[in-house]
């Protein structure tokens, strides 16, 4: 029976925490982007669509490296914005959250968009003619009717976040207790000849969490159908 070390428990907690924070942080941005893509026409809409979906097709390692170039000591944002403010992101827990958020963002936007696109256009027209401005309409009509999409997007992003490795290891490093998530811990064990048992044990933990998340998603989906 494998015994988890202190840093193994930390890895599990860290994975959960990073995935949750990344998801919560991405929700408002994901909603805003989905709203723009669904309801607004503007120049450069195609470009925005491409940029938002890029992380889906890029290898996570590439995303990690691009983030490093942007946010590192010599990066564009790093040098001109972060350093003067005394903010260090690379190799911190925050970088892990950013990497996870970036990688999962297209999944969230897609889910929310799919939900938004099914909203009856006449409902929005009705709310406008009844006296609700665009922001009022967003909060009182579009948001409540997008809940399903928001939920699906959150769960997808959370699950993806739990498994994030490539971008995380580059931009947040493998720091036990700080940025070493479950995938990074497993990676370390896999490189070690004596680590197979622990690697397997952590794999099982990872699988268990994923199964729990999927079951929760199903249950939530059913509850919403019943509430209709």
């Amino acid at each position, binding site marked *: 029976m494998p015994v988890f070390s202190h840093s193994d428990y930390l890895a599990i907690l860290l994975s959960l925490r990073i995935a949750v924070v990344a998801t919560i942080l991405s929700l408002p941005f994901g909603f805003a982007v989905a709203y723009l893509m669904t309801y607004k026409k503007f120049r450069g809409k195609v470009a925005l669509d491409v940029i938002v979906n890029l992380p889906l097709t890029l290898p996570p390692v590439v995303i990690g490296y691009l983030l490093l170039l942007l946010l590192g000591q010599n990066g564009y944002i790093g040098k001109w914005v972060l350093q003067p403010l005394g903010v260090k992101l690379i190799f911190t827990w925050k970088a892990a959250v950013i990497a996870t958020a970036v990688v999962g963002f297209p999944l969230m936007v897609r889910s929310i968009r799919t939900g938004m696109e099914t909203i*009856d256009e006449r409902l929005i*027209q*009705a709310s*406008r*003619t*009844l006296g609700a401005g665009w922001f009022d309409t967003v909060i009182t009509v579009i948001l409540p009717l997008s809940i399903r999409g928001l939920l699906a997007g959150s769960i997808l992003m959370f699950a993806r976040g739990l498994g994030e490795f490539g971008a995380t290891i580059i931009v947040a490093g493998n720091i036990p207790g700080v940025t070493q998530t479950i995938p990074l811990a497993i990676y370390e064990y896999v490189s070690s000849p004596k680590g197979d048992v622990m690697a397997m044990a952590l794999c099982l933990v990872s699988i268990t969490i994923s199964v729990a998340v999927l079951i929760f998603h199903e249950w939530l989906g059913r509850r919403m159908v019943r509430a209709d």
Partner: protein
Amino acid sequence: MELRVAAQKQFGTFFLDMDFTIEGRRIGLFGPSGSGKSTLVSLVAGLHHPDRGLILIDGEPIFDSGQAVNVPPEHRRISMVFQRPHLFPHLSVKGNLLYGYKRCAPKDRKITLDSLLEVLQIGHLLGRGVKNLSGGEKQRIAIGRAVLSNPRMLVMDEPLSALDDNLKFQIIPFLKSACEAFAIPYLFISHSLTEMRIMTDRVLSVAAGRVVGQMTAEQLARNSMGDSSVGYKNLLRLMAPRRIDGMYAYRWGDGELLISGGAGLQETLYELSATDIILFKRHPEAISARNLLKCRVGEMFEAGDRIGIGLECGSDKLVAVVVREAVRDLEIKKGMEIYAAVKATAFRQLG
């Protein structure tokens, strides 16, 4: 209320170019499918913007491309009723009804929930969700929602088209009483002449994105008489029937009309097609039709390739349609006495 529109809009291959001024409290907008009625209405409500032009309500501009005026829909105070109810699924009946009311400035809130519930008779639905309501209930709530926002004008885009006939003529009284009780001017779109005649006074007729003409609802119906598919339908509001021989007798003109079928309600609206009236120069001794009316010929007018003949009977009127040859043969002239025969089964109950 006065509505002035001079606007142009390109919508794909469809080009709308309308210039008109129309007055009244009960305005109709009539035309075939694709003639631009819905487009015009969405421009007035502010849901879309003309490419150029102006829109004025009671002299106040709500859109003017020349002066860069474009009042957003939420400030125009023009609410809409659509063909389908489009109620907010995530709000209760009460939530739906009060949506516009809450967003109305307190000083403008003349119509209140309680008074509306009475008029539309939906008080018993108040606590419910909107999913399991009948079509008629939903449309009444949609009307209530639009009215409760205390608009200065109500726009109704074919609000009855999706309802079956029975329901249609049940809803019409609610619609009328809500607008009359609260003195809301409205713009009513329909492709049904009957609905137009019941709901509106002045009608704007449009086709292919252009204004074709402006007239009363009656004139519109008369003009469409030439269409054999539509014809002219006499609308008769009859009251206090008496039951006789399995039929209902209503006071009309100098005598009575006998109608078979019907439900014996205190007040009923009936439809009688102008082509179902047979004219006799002299009193026929015996005919099978149960109704034989002695009338005076009033106006006569062209109706396509036939002639429409206005018949006056006491203080009531009817319109009959006959072919030119018949007019010649019977030597029908204005002012002469004539007999009109109508079968008891020719009347169609509307509501």
